[in-house]
Every structure is written in C-alpha cells, then in structure tokens.
C-alpha cells in the first residue's frame, strides 16, 4: 500500500481505513461546528473560502470513500458496527461448521484423502481471503473468511495429531499464532490479530511453564506464566509498527486483559503460584498488586490518551474492590447492607472520577 498517495489538490491521503475513517469523522464534525458558529454570528467565512473548503472536503471524502469505502455519515457508521458484529458471529458459525463437517465425514475417507483435505483446506480458504479483499474495501468478508481459514489451519494440525497419534505439543500454538499474525498484517484485519495474539500468548506461557519442568498443558495452573506472556505482548506496543496504528490498542488490551485475569485468579487461589509461601500471603500480595496495577494502568491510559486502557483499568479496579468486599462482608453482613455499601461506594467512585475528569480538563486546557 502506498502511503504517499495524494489528492489532486496536494493533500495527502491516509494510509489505512482506520485513519481515513477518523479523518472523515473530523470533517463531518467540522462542518457541523462551522454551521453552528455561523448561525450564532461568531464566525463568517467569505463565500469563496467556504466554497474552497467545501470543495476540498467533498473531493477528499469522495477519494476516501472510493479508496477505503469509509462511512461518511453516523447512520452508515452504526450500520458498519452491525456488520462487524455479524461478520464475527458468521466467522464463529462457519468455523464450527468446518469442524463438525470434517468430524461427520472423516471416518468415510482414507488416510491419504483425509490428509490432503486437511492440508488443502486452509490454503484454499486463504486464497478466498485474498479474493474477498480485492473485491471489497471494507474487508468484512475478508475478515470473516480469514477466521475460517484460521479455523481450518487449527483443524488441520489438531486432526493430523489425532490421525497419526502424535504426542501433543505447544508448538502448534506457535504455528497458528504466526499464521494469524501474517494474515492480520497482510490484510489489516483486527479480529484475526486477536486470535494470533492469543495463540502466541498461549505458546509463550506454555513454553515458560516447561522451563520449570511442568507439562505444557499445565501452564494454566501457574497463572504467573500468563502474566509474563501478557506483559511481553503489552511491551510489543513499543516496537515500531509504522502504518499499523490501528493494531496497537489490540496489543494493549489483549496483553493487559491477560495480566489482569491472571492476577485476579491468583488473588483468590494462592495455591496456583510459583511462590512457595503460604497461599493466604500470596493471595494478599496479588490483591494489593491488582489495586496498584489498576491505578498505574489508569494513570498510563490518561497520560497517553489510551481510552481503552483507562476503561480496562477502571473496570478491574472495581472488580478487585468488589471481590474484596465480597470476601470481607458477604457471609456476615445482611444482604441489604452489603448492596447498600456497594451502591454508596459506587457513588463515592463517581465523585472521585468526576474530580479526576475536572483535573484532566484543566491540564488539557
């Protein structure tokens, strides 16, 4: 993709659909605000300047719509969101169909035919992704087909394992993760990026588990493996990914989500830790760690304007808080008092967050 492509008027076109959509949104908001300012008599642009801006924006929107098939109105945007959800659900359903179809009929086939079908399926479906990406700029169909190709590759390796009774290994996750990442970066697809990151995280966590001598499938029984894998994923954000800015939030959210979930588990299940201290002490450490990490994540999110990260940090702060209250009070406190306190704390949190919001506004202004 050529990032240096320009408009006839000399303006530079964005490199990705995501950037193009952001630019179109800004133009729409600019038009609304300009109209408002004119109606209130605060600003009045000369007719030729207004025409020049309108012509420029119109050309730009046409060029963006032509190149990226972006949404140029809020209604179209809502429709797009619906299409994304449908595309995801469709991918899940089709992937399940691929699995069950093969299971239903594989016993009727010879081993050679089984192997040929398993190897050929992801190759053929991947060519389908390329075909869809060429024909449709929004990439809804390409995204759907890419997930089916991923499912076919998962089926390929897992069924070869069954057919030839191969000893299970975590290396399959590396192959699936690498495949998903290549497809995601080739076609700029975020859903399959999530699948790829989850596979790579599974591979890293399982491999780290084997270093301490445990069986790779037991990695979930030592959630600290997942914390390190999540951290590596989160740090990958800081590796230069020029031209793939829309992927960075995915890395951040998937990495942090894994870390938070692992800490949440360890804060209630000290027996699952590598640390050979009494389980209660380990749980207390992770509970404190969960609060500290939530705070740091919220701070980092605000500082870097990562909205998803702020929301994730806030959500887990509340989860850590409420699970702690549950541990302390649920058994001995009347239920109405328990919920009353939770409600009161929610109101208190609203005040605190409101205060933070005001401070943030002061800083940014």
């Amino acid at each position, binding site marked *: 993709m050529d990032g240096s492509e320009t408009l006839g008027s000399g303006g530079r076109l964005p490199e990705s659909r995501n950037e193009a959509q952001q630019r179109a949104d800004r133009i729409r908001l600019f038009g609304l605000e300009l109209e408002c300012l004119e109606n209130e008599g605060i600003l009045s642009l000369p007719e030729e300047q207004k025409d020049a801006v309108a012509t420029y924006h119109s050309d730009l929107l046409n060029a963006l719509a032509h190149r990226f098939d972006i949404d140029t109105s809020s209604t179209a945007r809502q429709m797009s969101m619906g299409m994304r959800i449908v595309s995801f659900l469709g991918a899940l359903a089709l992937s399940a169909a691929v699995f069950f179809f093969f299971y239903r009929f594989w016993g009727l086939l010879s081993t050679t035919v089984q192997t040929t079908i398993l190897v050929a399926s992801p190759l053929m479906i991947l060519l389908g992704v*390329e075909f869809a990406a060429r024909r449709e700029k929004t990439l809804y169909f390409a995204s759907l087909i890419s997930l089916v190709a991923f499912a076919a590759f998962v089926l390929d390796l897992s069924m*070869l394992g069954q057919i030839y009774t191969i000893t299970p290994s975590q290396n399959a996750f590396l192959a699936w993760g690498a495949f998903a990442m*290549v*497809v995601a970066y080739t076609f700029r697809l975020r859903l399959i990026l999530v699948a790829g990151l989850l596979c790579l995280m599974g591979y890293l966590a399982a491999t780290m588990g084997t270093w301490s001598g*445990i069986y790779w499938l037991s990695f979930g*029984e030592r959630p600290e493996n997942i914390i390190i894998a999540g951290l590596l994923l989160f740090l990958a954000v800081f590796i230069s990914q020029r031209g793939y800015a829309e992927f960075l939030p995915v890395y951040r959210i998937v990495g942090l989500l894994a870390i938070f979930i692992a800490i949440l588990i360890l804060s209630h299940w000290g027996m699952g830790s590598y640390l050979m201290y009494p389980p209660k002490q380990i749980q207390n450490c992770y509970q404190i760690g969960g609060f500290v990490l939530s705070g740091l994540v919220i701070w980092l999110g605000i500082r870097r304007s990562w909205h998803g990260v702020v929301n994730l940090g806030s959500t887990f702060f509340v989860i850590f808080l409420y699970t702690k209250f549950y541990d302390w009070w649920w058994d001995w406190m009347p239920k109405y008092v328990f919920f009353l306190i939770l409600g009161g704390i929610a109101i208190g949190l609203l005040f605190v967050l409101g205060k933070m919001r005001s401070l943030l506004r002061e800083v940014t202004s």
Partner: protein
Amino acid sequence: MKRRGLMIALALIVLVNIIVLAGVNYNRTGEPDATVTLTERELHLVSSKKENSGVSLKLELQAEPDKPGEGSYWFDRKKLEEVGFDCSKSMDASDASDYYDRVLPRKTYVVLEYEGTAWKLWQAGREKQLRALEAKVAEGREERKTLDTGRKRFKWELEGGSRLFAVDAGNDPARLRQRYTDRTRYVITPALVRLNLLRVDAAEKQRKPVLVGYVREILTDEIHVPRDRQGILASLKPAEYYSFYDDRKDNFAPRYTVKLTYGRRYEPWVEQVMKK
C-alpha cells in the same frame, strides 16, 4: 505487501504440514520400538458414529494399588526423583501437604507391561483381599452382600479387566528399552506422571506419610483406526461391559485383537485388527 504476505502465509501452512508429516514418516519407518497384540480388554472401542464418523481405540491401564508393599508397587520416592520431582521437603514438616499438593504433573516415559509379572501379582493381591473379606464375613464384621459384590467384581476383572500395567518410568526412553528388551511385551510411551503424599489415616497410625507416584495420563492413549484397517470394528459398538455393574449377568468376551506398533518416536499406530 499483500502478495508477499499471502505467499508467506501459504508457505507457512505448507512448511508446518511438511514438518508434521516428516515427523510421522520418521516415526513409522525403520525398526519399530515395539509391536504388541492387545485385546478389547486393553483397547476399548471409542465410536460415537452420529457426529463423529471416525473410529478410535482407547488404551486402558489397570489401576495400580498405591500402598507400598502391595501388588507391583514400584513408583516410590526414588523413582519420583529420577523423573525430576523435587522430593527434598521432609514429609513430617508441617507444610509438607501444602508443598506436595502444589507440585504439578511432569512429562516422562513409562513402561507398560502386557500380561506379565505385574498382572500375576495384581491377581494374587486381589485374591488375598477377597480371602480377607471372606474371613470378615465369617466373623460377622462385614455383610454377605459386600462379599458377593467383591466376588462378582473379581470375576469381571479376570474376564474383562485390562492386563496392561505401568511398571517403570524414566526420562530416557532408550535406557528404559535396554532394561525391558522384550518388544512384544513391553511398550514405552510418553505419559504424564504425578506425585501424591499419602497421609496417615486413623486405622494406620503406626505408618508414616509416604510419597508415591502414579501415571495420570498416557499422552497417546487414543489411537485412530484408519478406514482400511478397521476390520470388524466398523460394525461394532462400544461394549456396555467396559464398566462393572453389580447386577450384570452376562460374561465378558473380548471381540477383537489389535496389533499395535510403536515407532521411533514412541507413537503408536494400528497395524491390524483381527476378530477374536
């Protein structure tokens, strides 16, 4: 960029499949590590037909007694340490239970013995248990019904129970093979093993807590049967008498035997299925 990315993805699929199939080829060529002929008692049929048309067999091991001095007990503390478990914590320590409960399973290789010494010892142990139960019934310390169930169960085990026993474990399969040279009776296979701290119970206060190991899972225990080698299996359903029921009247009679070969990577495949 797109064309290059597409080519990389396609090449990745092809390359990974080549690696997997080359591994299969390596396992199945050359001198096999073992070839054993087992019956339905050791290889239960797994087949659901409706949603899964594949046919596979599940390797069944006979459950081991876990008390030292009984049956073919062999998986002791020394063996646990040999396969890599850290057993340095004293079993009398106050936090010994916490420590050993947290130890996760390890992958190693186990030796499976078919219809050998372990099977004979196991039968002798069961007979001894039955004699003890008969004595208790005679003294009025146990009900007659318990003895009847025990006898039925023993009969079912003799007719239908697996004669395949785990008899040794180690991280080096080649060394295990040097020790167990009969390739028609001893199979070496990757497995998950775990340790267990047996605590003192009220009836055995004189006994000290003891560490024992056990085979938690054979990693290649489900073996796919290719269509051209299914033989009689294609027309069979899993037998109901794979499990013991007290009120069962009919006898168990294995319906097939299977020639199973283990290759150079200790992974099995079905060579032949024969009607019994």
